[in-house]
């Protein structure tokens, strides 16, 4: 891998374990991921592959009984995940990393005005890292922040942006609420936006509009975006690069076009084949994602893999990296760009 210095967010060998009543579950196992400035990076995998735990780890919001056992998360050279450094991730939330949640219908607090909720992070962090308003009296700040929010609401194409701040969440439709949440993610001027399947809960036409909006906003504002989804179609429309996850491991990554046209890992190939527009006959993947309590040895995909050989069960396959691509499969010895 080259150009470590250009990564905005870098995750190295991250492993996360969560204690449950039935034992310790290994949710993430040696996850690697790089987000470069101005790019949109997709993270794709079936449900239960650890995508949302990855997001929680970046935000420093692992569940009470969960902890990172190994690895590091670095944001612009600052360690977000180091023993006893809860505050690093805490102060990154909202300020350096904007977050767009999965279900806009459930994410807004029903009993507070939209404006109160959208202003909340700004009270804490201001409008940007070097916000001149920070020391102003509250009334002045509030006026400035409201102006900023109205601009953002206009940018996310919400109708009536001036009135929106005075209204309550239930007075907006699902698509409108997702626009509100996108504006909220941008309020403090973060460089990175984490999006957790932000279109899954919406209907198809709204999905398309939101994807277009996200792409436009990212381009205009030079944002980097980590976009988590289970849908390769969304990745194709939106992302520049992609990482494929399976059962808590990153198994393949690279530029979207190259990865989708020439997938190297059997799982990536099978996942792509699940898409009706990409293959003639609709195939599923036999079996199910293994429980993190009983993760298979070696390559975690081997019980479902049609190309399984004896070595797959023995040890985790070495990741093979070339220019911008990475594959972790015993059948793969070198990757070209």
């Amino acid at each position, binding site marked *: 891998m080259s150009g470590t210095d250009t990564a905005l967010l870098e995750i190295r060998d991250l492993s996360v374990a*969560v204690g449950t009543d039935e034992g310790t579950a290994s949710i993430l196992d040696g996850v690697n991921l790089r987000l470069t400035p101005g790019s949109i990076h997709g993270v794709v995998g079936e449900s239960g592959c650890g995508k949302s735990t990855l997001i929680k780890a970046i935000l420093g919001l692992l*569940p*009470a*009984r*969960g902890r990172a056992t190994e690895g590091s998360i670095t944001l612009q050279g600052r360690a977000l995940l180091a023993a006893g450094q809860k505050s690093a991730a805490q102060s990154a939330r909202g300020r350096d990393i904007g977050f767009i949640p999965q279900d806009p219908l459930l994410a807004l607090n029903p009993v507070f005005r939209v404006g109160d909720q959208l202003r909340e992070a700004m009270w804490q962090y201001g409008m940007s890292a070097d916000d001149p308003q920070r020391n102003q009296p509250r009334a002045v700040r509030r006026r400035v922040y409201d102006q900023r929010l109205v601009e953002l609401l206009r940018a996310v194409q919400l109708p009536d942006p001036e009135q929106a701040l005075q209204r309550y969440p239930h007075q907006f439709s699902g698509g409108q609420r997702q626009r509100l949440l996108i504006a909220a993610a941008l309020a403090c001027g973060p460089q990175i936006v984490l999006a957790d399947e932000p279109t899954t809960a919406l209907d198809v036409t709204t999905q398309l509009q939101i994807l277009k909006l996200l792409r436009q906003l990212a381009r205009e504002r030079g944002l980097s975006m980590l976009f988590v989804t289970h849908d390769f179609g969304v990745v194709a429309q939106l992302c520049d690069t992609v990482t494929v996850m399976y059962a808590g491991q990153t198994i393949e990554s690279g530029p979207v076009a190259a990865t989708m046209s020439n997938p190297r890992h059997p799982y990536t190939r099978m996942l792509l084949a699940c898409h009706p527009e990409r293959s003639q006959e609709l195939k599923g993947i036999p079996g199910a994602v293994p429980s993190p309590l009983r993760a298979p040895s070696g390559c975690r995909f081997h019980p479902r893999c049609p190309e399984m050989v004896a070595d797959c069960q023995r040890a985790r396959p070495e990741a093979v990296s070339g220019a911008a691509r990475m594959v972790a499969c015993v059948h793969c010895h070198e990757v070209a760009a």
Partner: protein
Amino acid sequence: MLIVRKFLRDVAAVLGFVIICVVIGIAIFGPFLLPHPDLVFDSDILRRFEPPSAEFWFGTDNLGRDIFSRVIIGTRGALMVALTVVAIAIAIGVPLGIYAGYTTGWPAEVIMRVTDVFLAVPQLILALAIAQLAGRGLGSAMAALALTYWPFFCRTVYAETRRLRHTVFIEALQGLGASKTRILFVHVLPNVASPIIVRATVGMGFTILTTALLGFLGVGATPPNPDWGLAIAESREYLPDVWWAATFPGLAILITVLGFNLFGDGLRDLIDPKLRRSRS
């Protein structure tokens, strides 16, 4: 038995269960365990106001009666009264609640309006008034308590039955042509049993408290009944010197009610595990 294991893990609920068992044991076997069986009802003026000692654990009262023995005997009365009141309240409230919840039409409407009116007046004031006007005594007090307590059961059961009525399985039974009585007693009643049990358990504690208050105010048990509330009332004029005469009957109330409340609380957690979900 997963449910038993789950219950055993709840220390507070197990404590409540143990207290209830001990209290019931005392109620049944108490008369055989008395240190001074002769000093329960008969007075011994020479021994009045003796402080707690090895001979009289809880001391003696103004008539020289052994307070420990009286508290023991009082247990039986307290449990019997509470059990009777709760049983009558269930006998009235549950059928009415099931009926009103399952049917529509004016009888159901009337039942619920009457229930609402009862619930709109503080139970204690009504119970006190009825107990007094029906003639003082334990019998009237019990009738008054039962008469003002059934609406609470009726409300609970009504809400639960209403909820059940629209569930798939009841609708399926109706589709199969099961008779109304059969549905009500064989299918609805067992399903509303758990909230009834929880309410009855907590209601035992509540009724013991209210009965004691009635006894204290003088519209419940009459002397020489060793009723806990009455004992506290009788001891009041000798305060603060004879502190033990008021303290121990009150502690008996506290521990008994605590037992029922802790146990009821644990049962509620078992039946309605919503609040037990571990947060992640």
